[in-house]
């Protein structure tokens, strides 16, 4: 027996030494490549729910009695009465709140905000908008999801507002003193195949960043055409939208096709005389018409018949991490062209008649977006063949020609450090065959930059920055300095200084007089 022990001892010592070496080699650098098939991880992932994770029992393959649903030593249960969660009434679910999992879904919700937004024009220190708004939006589930976490099968969304703007309504007739209106109202039908959306809706089919050549569905909101220094403000339209997911394969991670029909086309409403957003050209036409030197007709909007229906389609996919989309559109120009004709006057003389019209046109294009390590790049290219382009002067008839127009944007954004956000975009418009016609209002090539830079301060309660659009071909610029402060979860205080400048004939320069300061207070509920 002594002999047996003597033989065992060196082996045991060797084992102990190996053990000691292993115990000291606890730091293990990760392999250079990931180990999706790591045997340890794989084995652990396959643990049936009845097996315990304690010790090495799993590896012995012994089925254990199901462990208890709670464990000893829980920091929030070891000191009864001292659980900080128990003292937080705010953590309790709200009555009627939507639940995840198997809990019953919230069937109706009502939210909104009240806001005072006041805008003072710097030039004459006149208030050009004192908008007081009550905004309500509601969601109703008409047929709940059949599976936990799933989309509700049939749901209704409605939003609307009650606005009062004594300053804007005092300047022009296109903003009423009191305005109670529906904004978006649409029904979503979620099926296993096609999803359908029917109703009044905002729908962005472009990249939605700064300049958007293919965002052609929704017209501008004439009351506030500039939502920010680099974004416009749109109005919803009545539409039907179908979204059909397509099968994927290989590195095609997602694919879908969307079809849109806008049965009754909507276009930009021309601003009334006196509005701060009445363009310089329109103002001159009105003045000339008032002097009797020409006839300026009312805006001739497309008739509200199905014959004038607009259509769009979007084939979208995500391939190797790239969002790619092909887009087609047929509809009406949102901004009018001023058609010219001659009209015989009572004196037998031909008089120039100008009619703002919205001819139809088509557009095709594609866009892309890709997230890089810390940046995102986006781009969009569109071709609008036979797009109506205005001619300068008053002699040519009908005052516009059709030309092919290429529009492209390419943008990049990135967050530096913790929260410093920078967004830059270059845009360019090129007119096909521009040299064949003299006197086009557009240059053969127009281009510019849009930009935004912002950062967060004061524990992220304050967001401050600058954003704008700057033409490099004589259209002028916008530049907005802004700050938004979250006083509480529900109260937002915001202030901004908007500057517009450039040549009087420029897209932005024509609003040179509208440099303004805006103060906004919003309470959300």
């Amino acid at each position, binding site marked *: 027996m002594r002999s047996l022990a003597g033989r*065992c001892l060196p082996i*045991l010592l060797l084992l102990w030494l190996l053990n000691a070496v292993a115990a000291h080699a606890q730091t293990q650098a990760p392999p250079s490549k990931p180990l999706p098939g790591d045997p340890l991880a794989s084995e652990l992932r396959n643990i049936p729910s009845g097996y315990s994770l304690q010790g090495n029992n799993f590896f012995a393959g012994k089925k254990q009695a199901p462990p208890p*649903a709670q*464990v*000893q030593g829980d920091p929030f249960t070891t000191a009864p009465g001292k659980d900080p969660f128990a003292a937080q009434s705010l953590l309790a679910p709200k009555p009627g709140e939507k639940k*995840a999992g198997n809990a019953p879904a919230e069937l109706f919700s009502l939210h909104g905000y009240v806001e005072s937004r006041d805008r003072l024009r710097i030039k004459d220190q006149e208030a050009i908008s004192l908008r007081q708004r009550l905004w309500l939006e509601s969601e109703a589930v008409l047929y709940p999801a059949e599976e936990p976490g799933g989309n509700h099968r049939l749901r209704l969304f409605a939003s609307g507002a009650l606005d009062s703007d004594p300053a804007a309504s005092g300047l022009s007739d296109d903003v009423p003193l009191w305005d109670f209106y529906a904004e978006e109202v649409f029904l979503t039908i979620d099926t296993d195949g096609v999803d359908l959306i029917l109703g009044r809706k905002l729908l962005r089919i472009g990249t939605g960043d700064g300049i958007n050549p293919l965002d052609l569905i929704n017209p501008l909101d004439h009351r506030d055409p500039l939502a920010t220094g680099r974004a416009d403000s749109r109005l919803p339209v009545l539409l039907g939208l179908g979204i059909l997911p397509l099968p994927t394969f290989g590195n095609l991670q997602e694919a879908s096709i969307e079809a849109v029909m806008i049965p009754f086309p909507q276009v930009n409403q021309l601003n009334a005389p006196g509005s701060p957003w009445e363009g310089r050209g329109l103002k001159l036409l009105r003045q000339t018409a008032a002097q009797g030197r020409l006839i300026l007709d009312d805006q001739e909007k497309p008739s509200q018949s199905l014959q004038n229906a607009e259509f769009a389609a979007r084939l979208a996919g*995500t391939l190797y991490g790239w969002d790619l989309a092909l887009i087609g559109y047929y509809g009406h120009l949102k901004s009018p062209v001023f058609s010219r004709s001659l009209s015989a006057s009572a004196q037998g003389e031909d008089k120039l008649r100008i009619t703002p019209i919205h001819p139809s046109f088509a557009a095709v294009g594609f866009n892309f977006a890709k997230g890089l390590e810390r940046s995102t790049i986006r781009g969009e290219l569109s071709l609008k063949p036979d797009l109506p382009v205005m001619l300068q002067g008053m002699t040519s008839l009908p005052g516009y020609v059709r030309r092919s127009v290429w529009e492209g944007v390419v943008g990049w954004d990135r967050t530096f450090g913790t929260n410093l956000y920078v967004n830059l975009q270059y845009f360019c418009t090129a007119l096909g065959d521009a040299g064949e016609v003299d006197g086009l209002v557009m240059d053969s090539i127009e281009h510019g930059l849009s930009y935004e830079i912002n950062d967060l301060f004061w524990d992220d309660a304050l967001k401050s920055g600058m954003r704008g659009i700057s033409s490099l071909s004589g259209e002028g610029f916008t530049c907005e300095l802004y700050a938004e402060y979250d006083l509480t979860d529900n109260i937002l205080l915001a202030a901004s200084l908007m500057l517009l400048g450039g040549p009087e004939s420029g897209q932005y320069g024509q609003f040179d007089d509208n440099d303004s300061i805006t103060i906004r207070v919003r309470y959300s*509920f």
Partner: protein
Amino acid sequence: MRKSASILMLAILLLAGNAQAADTGREIMLKVDAVDNSRDAVMSSVMVIERGDAKLIRRMEHMTKNYGDALKDERTLIRFVEPADVRGTAYLTWSYDDPEREDDMWMFLPAESLVRRISGGGKKGAFMRSDLANEDIEDRAIDDDIHTLKGSAEQHGADCYVIESVPRPELKRDTNYSKRVQYIRKDIYLPCRVEYYDKRGKLLKIGTHGGFKRIDGIWTITKSIIETPRRKTRTLYQRSEITYNQGLDDGLFLQSNLKR
């Protein structure tokens, strides 16, 4: 005979010790990662962010589904319910276990009816003004850090491994932390305390996790407190209505699903 038996007993003890020691920091973290072996999960969560007398509330709904042969890739959809001004805002993330592959992320802004591709550049920023950083709520691959077992310690009466997790050198610029010290419970392989150290090596914040519940056979943290002593702020984070393996439809995790 008694001496021989003693030697054999010693050998068994040594071998048993050897089996324990074989768990390196990385292996323990693999076990932590493997605790949630669900294919999908649905849950609600509430954050109460305490800043002096002020309290900010965040309510969210989460859905997650794992993909790939080893269920290592993950798609997550988060929809905000509260505060009111961000209600309906949603984030969709496709994250990949392969550290060489960029995550795909999109944000849905309901007021603008806009789905926008975003990047992971803001990882170091605070998540909705809480004590959590965006990087804290993301699915972090095991091999994004080098894990070292520093020993054992007791936390709230539970025996824990103490693991020091240091970001891989090439990932250091993407994180707020020089290291995290994690206390991993030995019984259920879940962290009950995480200490976050800033780039200068000073303690930045402390996460305490608890409310351990075994839901659908999976041990789950349902309550966390993240404290930032320097700022004297803390965030209480509670998860509820948790269900696993409900067979969530793949269509929920597509861009085309990001709509009202």
